[in-house]
């Protein structure tokens, strides 16, 4: 085509229209320097023009138009790329994510697809962590989580109502509109170590555009090279020192904390800390112990910092949920370390410490405080009180940690309420991470003991002290009646060879403030007769045995013992056993034999107590018969009787039978011998032999029988008269229902000599 025109420069100079033409003609050619690519389907047209002259006129000409259509040129970038992998630090046990950004750098909108195989090309491809899921976020959509490559691809290709989620290509500077993100989520175990790798392999597909067919890019590979590093870990140690006196005991605690992990500690969001604490930070809390259970021990004075992070302050609480700076009525003491102090104190790990072991040099926080101890039983036991200190702190994985909190379960993002972290404050297990405990006595040791009759270790004896209490027994050779009557006028009793042992049951009470192991020893007690040669004494556990307790081992029944373990405040029984020899031995009747048994404290050697075990052989009610004569006076008028062993016919003779219970008396809660159903039989013509000694009564023969009814001084029951009536009777009985230890009485009767 040829057109006569002015010269082209003239055209350009002469009118705005040609300028506009040229401008219009060329303007679209320029475009943006930053434009990434010509959109697929774009038709690029070009037409040449020319101007020329014949020397006078100017002509123009125009060519045909050439059209080129731009094809799809899909391309993507994955960041971080495999060539320069990203890095993440993850802590063992914590979940983690590597976020990949996929950008459409092609020349049209397209949708992404993952390529390859899970575990080889996508996900965790090397190392110990386990792949968990992919989280896919496309522009304008909420994040979606999938567990397989196929699921991801299905979502990206058809999730948009059956169509793909296409992302426009970058024009100029890439924005989030040109990108999707895919996170590779993984889990680690607490034993995971070393390094690991995640990958994401993807391509992008641009759908057909005009005459440009759909096209898919080559794959791009993203990569992270991650490292497992132990997270922040609050190590704590607590030391208790018992002081004061048993009557005014104290316990001092020294508490130390250190970040012994491999990563920095972070401040816990204020919303996750108990009320009364303002601002983010770390807290350590210590509930004062109780002793005994239900009795709260109290602060003595106020705590003192040994090593104080800048800005750290003491906090107190009476219930663990509301904290204040006032120590009044506090049952909790703690420290608040504000966020501003964490960088210098706990912001970096300080290796070397461990759970329950933090030296003063390692400590990033150390403080001491004093409590009042306890005067209650058992307070001096070394395990009387366990005092646990706890902590609530943030880790580098974005979670809140503390004893009793499930690791990596509470996000430190301000949405975790204080109620969720409260279990850490309430924790009573000082072996958990973030806590420590000190088990100690609540008082200095003060041994003390009571040793006494069965069931009454605090019994008192005749002098009113607990060293003269007693247990009295009557020995009968185990029911063999060896010694029920005396020989030689009732003064000597013989215990046959290998007779039955004498067994006492005693009780011992630990009246000290710590469990004690008492040593038992025997010596002849004051006022007692030593046992005959050959008799031995030993101690045994009760037949039922002694069950194990917190501090004392089980002792089977009838085990020979020399020591006895007793819990503070408790009472246990033991047997004191006297064993006769294999030969016969003789005892004096109505005489107490036995020992004073001493229990000596193992805690305090000067703490001793005595109980007396005594026994009688041949009975403990002694009868004594005397006779008196009213010389020259018959019974009708006799008033005065003189002890005499002779009488004349017609004299009135008066017999007196005195009965005496020789068992010990006095004191409280002692075990003694009270006689019951005692029957004294008088027969004026009785004869016989007792233990080889013959005797014969003759007053029935030599008198007219009872002149009158006998008289019992205690008013006991008389009877048993021959012929039915007292007068003239040659027999009678005196029935004494009971005769207490130490008690005595008599019965008298008169006969007139023929």
């Amino acid at each position, binding site marked *: *085509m*040829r*057109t*006569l*025109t*002015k010269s*082209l420069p003239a*055209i*350009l100079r002469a*009118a*705005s*229209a*040609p300028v*506009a*033409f*040229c*401008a*219009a*003609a*060329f*303007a*679209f*050619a*320029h*475009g943006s*320097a930053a*434009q990434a*690519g*010509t*959109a697929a389907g774009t038709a*690029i047209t*070009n*037409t*040449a*023009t*020319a*101007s*020329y*002259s*014949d*020397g006078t*006129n100017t*002509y123009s*000409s*125009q*060519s*045909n*138009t*050439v*059209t*080129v*259509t*731009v*094809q799809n*040129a899909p391309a993507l970038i994955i960041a971080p790329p495999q060539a320069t992998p990203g890095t993440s630090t993850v802590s063992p046990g914590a979940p983690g994510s590597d976020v990949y950004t996929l950008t459409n750098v092609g*020349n049209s909108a397209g949708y992404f697809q993952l390529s390859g195989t899970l575990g080889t090309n996508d996900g965790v491809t090397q190392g110990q962590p386990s792949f968990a899921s992919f989280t896919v976020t496309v522009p304008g959509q909420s994040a979606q989580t999938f567990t397989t490559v196929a699921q991801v691809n299905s979502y990206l290709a058809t999730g948009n109502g059956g169509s793909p989620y296409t992302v426009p290509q970058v024009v100029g500077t890439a924005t989030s509109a040109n990108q999707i993100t895919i996170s590779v989520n993984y889990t680690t175990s607490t034993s995971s170590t070393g390094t690991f790798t995640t990958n994401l392999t993807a391509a992008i597909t641009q759908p057909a555009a005009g*005459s*440009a*067919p759909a*096209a898919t890019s080559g794959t791009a590979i993203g990569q992270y090279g991650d490292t497992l590093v132990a997270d922040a870990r609050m190590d704590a140690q607590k030391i208790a020192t018992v002081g004061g006196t048993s009557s005014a005991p104290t316990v001092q605690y020294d508490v130390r904390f250190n970040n012994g992990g491999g990563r920095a500690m972070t401040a816990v969001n204020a919303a996750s800390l108990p009320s009364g604490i303002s601002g983010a930070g770390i807290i350590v809390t210590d509930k004062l112990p109780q002793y005994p259970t239900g009795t709260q021990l109290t602060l003595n004075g106020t705590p003192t910092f040994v090593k104080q992070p800048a800005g750290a302050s003491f906090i107190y609480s009476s219930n663990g949920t509301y904290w204040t700076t006032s120590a009044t009525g506090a049952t909790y003491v703690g420290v608040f370390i504000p966020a501003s102090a964490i960088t210098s104190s706990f912001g970096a790990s300080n290796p070397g410490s461990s759970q329950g072991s933090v030296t003063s040099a390692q400590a990033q926080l150390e403080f001491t405080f004093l409590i009042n101890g306890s005067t209650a039983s058992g307070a001096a036991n070394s395990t009387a009180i366990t005092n646990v200190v706890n902590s609530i702190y943030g880790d580098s994985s974005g979670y809140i940690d503390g004893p009793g909190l499930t690791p990596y379960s509470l996000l430190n993002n301000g949405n975790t309420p204080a109620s969720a972290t409260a279990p850490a404050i309430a924790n009573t297990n000082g072996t958990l991470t973030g806590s420590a405990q000190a088990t100690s006595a609540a008082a200095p040791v003060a041994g003390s003991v009571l040793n006494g009759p069965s069931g009454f270790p605090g019994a008192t004896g005749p002098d009113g002290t607990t060293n003269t209490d007693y247990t009295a027994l009557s020995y009968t050779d185990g029911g063999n009646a060896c010694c029920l009557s005396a020989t030689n006028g009732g003064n000597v009793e013989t215990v046959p060879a290998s007779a039955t042992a004498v067994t006492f049951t005693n009780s011992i009470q630990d009246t000290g403030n710590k469990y004690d192991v008492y040593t038992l020893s025997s010596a002849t007690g004051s006022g007692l007769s030593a046992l005959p040669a050959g008799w031995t004494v030993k101690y045994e556990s009760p037949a039922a045995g002694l069950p194990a307790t917190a501090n004392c081992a089980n002792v089977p029944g009838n085990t020979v013992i020399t020591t006895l373990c007793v819990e503070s405040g408790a009472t246990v029984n033991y047997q004191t056993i006297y064993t006769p020899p294999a030969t016969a031995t003789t005892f004096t009747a109505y005489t107490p034999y036995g020992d004073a048994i001493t229990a000596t404290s193992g805690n305090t050697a000067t703490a001793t107590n005595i109980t007396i075990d005594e026994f009688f052989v041949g009975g403990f009610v002694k009868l004594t018969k005397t006779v008196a004569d009213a010389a020259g006076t018959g019974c009708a008028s006799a008033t005065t009787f003189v002890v005499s062993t002779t009488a004349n016919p017609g004299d009135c003779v008066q017999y007196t039978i005195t009965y005496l219970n020789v068992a010990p008396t006095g004191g409280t809660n002692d075990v003694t011998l009270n006689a019951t159903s005692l029957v004294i039989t008088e027969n004026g013509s009785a004869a016989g032999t007792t233990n080889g000694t013959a005797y014969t009564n003759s007053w029935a023969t030599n008198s007219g029988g009872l002149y009158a009814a006998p008289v019992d001084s205690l008013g006991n029951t008389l009877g048993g008269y021959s012929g039915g009536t007292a007068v003239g009777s040659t027999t009678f009985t005196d029935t004494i229902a009971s005769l207490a230890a130490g008690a005595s009485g008599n019965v008298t009767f008169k006969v007139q000599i023929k």
Partner: protein
Amino acid sequence: MKRQSMPPLLSVLAIVWVTGPALASAAPHVTLKLVGSHVTVVDGHVKREPVDGVVLKAGDDVEYEIVASNTGTRPALKLIPMARVPAGTEYVPGSAKGARASAQFSVDGGKTWSAAPTVVEKSAGVTVVKRADTSLYNAVRFVQEGALAPGTKATYSYEVRVK
């Protein structure tokens, strides 16, 4: 820059300057033919294929060849063929060629031409004139030396790369 669609403007030009075919019998008559070729290198050899109607992708090179033929009876003087660097493409440096012709380029839509166009940049109050990057070229023209005799033709070419 004021932009308007081409057809109306061309119409205006025709009304103002076109004198009609009556002059054709005693005048040069230059016809133009534009040929587009897809340029590839196969086994070290440059291969050109017609591109008209063909689908190309980013990175592909397109050679535009302008063939000017004087079918008139008088020499064509001051012959200046020109063509655009189309949007979506950029000029391939050093590719403009024409026998007895020198190439000039424009970065402002044809208002100004130069063998090495410049751009003005202002930075911190300082004005700097610097050579324009070839990616900014949006038009190419060839200034023919001498006349194109009747019955002869001249060929000019340049390459662009699809962005």
